[in-house]
């Protein structure tokens, strides 16, 4: 259902061109049924820029010297901030109870590098840090947690570390009391500094190889609830890039609804603890 498009000239197939450009640059795919949604999300940016047509905006994003800055606005407009603490915990339990112990049993030195590749406003990497802290790993062994998202504003919020009520819908109250402090009289809570500073935050577009390069060499990658917005082609490309650089044994966590079996032969699906986890095939190089 289109809410804003009535105000904007959508002509000459500009919506299709814009859809394909957004797909190419961000991986986000608004198929035929979701075209209006894309136009709705971008219309305020078009108006803000002083244009009256999507086609002009398409040219701006594709050719203008200032396009790089404008893409940050696009990523913000298209980001899906819907996330919360303690989400899909079976996988994080598998990480904390099986993968991490197994890794430190086999490796004496060197940090274990974990990358949360689509961290939105930070709930996922903070959940990982919190679970590791609860299990006694954080601070005891060398673990690096990196968290990134393509949306600048989402990462900014993650850096602030202040959360509203709806982020806590799944977090046990005891943990909330232990790791969060209410900010004054507001209905917002600040995350414990020890957890927050354990994470390195950055803005990274998964489609940008240069931006991805420093992070993709992690041992463990969380990339959950992203592929549902990607086309098959983009998922394959992203997973190929993960497979090429992830450090062995190479664990890839995706959401339960995001099967890669049809799209990648580089990872095997294994049952670890109570969760399904993709593990890089030994011959996938």
């Amino acid at each position, binding site marked *: *259902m289109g809410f804003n498009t009535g105000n904007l000239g959508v002509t000459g197939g500009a919506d299709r061109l814009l859809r394909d450009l957004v797909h190419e640059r961000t991986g986000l795919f608004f198929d035929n049924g979701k075209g209006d949604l894309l136009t709705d999300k971008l219309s305020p940016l078009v108006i803000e820029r002083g244009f009256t047509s999507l086609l002009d905006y398409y040219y701006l994003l594709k050719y203008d010297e200032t396009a790089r800055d404008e893409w940050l606005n696009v990523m913000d407009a298209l980001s899906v901030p819907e996330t919360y603490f303690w989400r899909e915990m079976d996988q994080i339990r598998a990480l904390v109870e099986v993968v991490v112990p197994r890794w430190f049993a086999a490796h004496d030195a060197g940090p274990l590098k974990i990358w949360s590749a689509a961290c939105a406003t930070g709930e996922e990497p903070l959940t990982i840090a919190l679970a590791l802290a609860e299990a006694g790993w954080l601070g005891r062994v060398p673990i690096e947690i990196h968290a990134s998202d393509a949306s600048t504003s989402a990462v900014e919020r993650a850096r602030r570390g202040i959360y509203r009520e709806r982020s806590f819908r799944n977090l046990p109250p005891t943990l909330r009391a232990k790791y969060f402090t209410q900010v004054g009289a507001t209905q917002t809570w600040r995350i414990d500094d020890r957890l927050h500073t354990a994470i390195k935050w950055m803005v990274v577009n998964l489609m940008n190889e240069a931006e991805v390069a420093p992070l993709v060499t992690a041992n463990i990658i969380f990339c959950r609830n992203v592929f549902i917005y990607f086309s098959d082609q983009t998922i394959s490309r992203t997973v190929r890039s993960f497979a090429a650089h992830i450090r062995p044994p190479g664990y890839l966590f995706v959401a339960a609804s995001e099967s890669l079996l049809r799209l990648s032969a580089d990872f095997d699906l294994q049952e670890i603890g109570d969760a399904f986890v993709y593990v890089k095939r030994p011959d996938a190089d």
Partner: protein
Amino acid sequence: MGNLTPSDNSIGVFTTDASLVIQIWDGALARLTGIPADAACGKLLVALLPNLEESRLLARFQRVLDEGTVEVLAPAFHHYLIPCPTLAPSKRFDRMQQRVTIAPLREDERVVGALVTIEDVTARIERERDLSEQLAHADEDTRLGAARTLAEDESLEPAPPLLGALEDESWRVRRVAVEGLARRAAPEAIAALLASVRENHHHLGLLNSALQVLAMSDVDTLSPLVEFLHDKDADLRMQAALALGEQRDERAIPALLGALDDADTNVRYHAIEALGKLRAVEAAAALACVAETRDFFLAFPALDALTRIGDASVAPRIVPLLEDELLREAAADALGHLGDEETIAPLAALLNTPNAPTQAVATALAALHDRYAKLFGEGAYIADLSRNAINPTGAQNLLDALNESSHADLRPLALVVGWLEGAAVERALTRLLGHGDARGETVEALVRHGSRVTDLLIEQLGSEDLEIRKSAVVALGRIGDARAAPALIKVLEDDTELIIVAANALAQIGDPRAFEALLALVGEPSAAVRQAVTGALNSLGSPEMPGRVLPLLNDPDANVRESAVKIAGYFGYAECTDLLLERCVDEDERVRRAAIEHLPYLEDERVTAALVHALRHETPKVRAAAAGALAQAEGPEVSTYLLEALADEDSWVRYFAARSLGWQMFAEGADALARLAQADKSNHVRIAAIEALGYIGGESAARFVAPLVKSDEPDLVRAAIAALGRISHPDAQTPLFEALRSTDAEVRAEVVVALGERVGAEALEQLRRVAATDAEPRVFAAACDALKRLGTPEAIAGLVSLTADAIRRETVVAALAQTKEALLEEVARGLLPRQPVEVRRAVVEALGRMKSQRASELLRRALDDADASVRASARGYRRSAFGRRPEDYS
């Protein structure tokens, strides 16, 4: 096949005369065999190779000489022709392994000797044997690696080892083997596979893999599979039916029809499925017979197959199955796809019973609705008939089902409930606003209910769910009931996330009470909100506006001034002219830009001068706005200034200046635009220049634009094609025709659209050719659409003849169904007896979809058609005149 790509030095050649005396012995062969040319030439072949006769190879040479055939001596059987040591040490072979081809050497039509090639395949075979051994390894990864290598390495012959791998216990290995064989296996390997199927069809793993290979293979496997259908072993017959269904080869239909009488139920089951997959129209009657038996095992697949086939003539035979307790849901599903308006009464009768299969009936009614909406634009007709046929029990069943339904099933229920009326229905619909899966249908239904649901929707404005509130606002706006205005004004004031949709809704309602609330928001920080608010105020068109907007043009808040400029400029209020001109030099850039954009709406002699001043002296954004606004300005000097702006340092100024020159069709600007089109550093400027040249037209524009069709940048190509389509000069045509040969389907589709803008026999001919031959659906669909838009008798005749092509038929029928009234006779020529039956049937379908009395009259001609299916289809369409009265026809 084999896909062998040997280097030249691994193949040696010799020739003989008709008596097998060696004539030529080339250097490569001398090197491979160690036998120099002078030791071989002039000798009888049997003298050089004494074992030739004993090994029965001499007979192969003789056959080449006598019959002119080509003989291949495969290394797997013969190992070698010329005994010689291997060139490199081998762990398996003492003698070089050779692949030998013996071909006839001809002069005119006579065979005068033999041409023999000897290829050293020792290393290749050694590698294949290694990989074969690895395929037998206990470790799955080793086997998988070997299978991958065999499947992907073009230098290897993959078939023999991979055939064995089809039986591997690992599905991964089997998958690689299947893909490798399907892609690369030679016909003889496929033949071996077929033989293997016959012998091993009880080995399920092998059988499944083999059938996958057959289904994916390019090799013609129809004949052996049809033969299997007559085998005495029922399992093999069953598997053959299965494979024939997967192969999608229509030639299998007669054999599969025969298999419907097979003694074995499983064979019949798979034959039914296969006929469905093949969309075998000729099987529809036979499958309807199967469904009518109500056989528990066969009736379901028969109904499913009938649905896939899509022959509507069998729908009346399915209707009685709605009474069958077991089959009624499957029958309803089939009727949803095959039925017509006559199907609604029996479906509704079923829905009106206690314990009705409500979800299945609703899904069928929704499918009928969607099909009628798509094909005939008559979804509302199905809704009307359904509403009249569903009684209170049926309505209650639907409402009950709504409460129990999962999200995935909600849409058809929501759609059908939306057709009904009454307080309970309206309450149910407002509750449905909370379900994203059915929200679109729900809003549409609520809008149809009109002001009766206004109060219910107003209640929803207090919902905690943003999406519900948003949908309620949208629905209220579309209903247009002024009673909603106060509530929407409150939303405007209190619900920051909904200001834009509320402003739009108030604009649709047009209630003057919204004026003050909207005016209070013209200074909002968000540009999108201001845009919505000013748009709504412009829609209201309040008589108070001129007096109220005047002071706002001097408001201290720049946002307010900008909005005021947009309102005053939009209406062109004379009393605001001076202030609008003043705002062109406002301290705020956005206000200046808005003022410049709106100046062309004013009738004042100072306008052009103000625009030109801005174009020369302003900031880049305001200069760009001025360049765009000058498109609407008048006066001989305008073009001169726009030409000057083509050299502006800012790309957007050049972009809008180029577009404005095109808009003004300023022919003298063609050279300057051509320079920009060819060499501007910004692609969007080049595109604007190309577009402008397209509007200016003429020989020189065509000449400038033509080379850009071959650009590497798709946007430039697209613009160039569109521009050439607009240029009527004949020189614009040739580059378009050339671009039709592009390997890029996107380019071909763009060219087709451009050609659709042109008139003339050549363009028509090209469009007909593309529509008939292009393999890419979107390209031939675009060509069909262009032919329809051209709308000449020749274009329509071309479309009619294309309906003979099964692949293109649906696309062509959809285009023909939109033919202009004046050309319906041309469409009806497709009903002439000399036309193929497929064409006649398709034309009936096209005429049947039209909302035209003339089309209905023309359909009458098909009632006497020699073919029963054409007559049945015509009867169906004439019966389904959608309950229209004559005055409903266009």
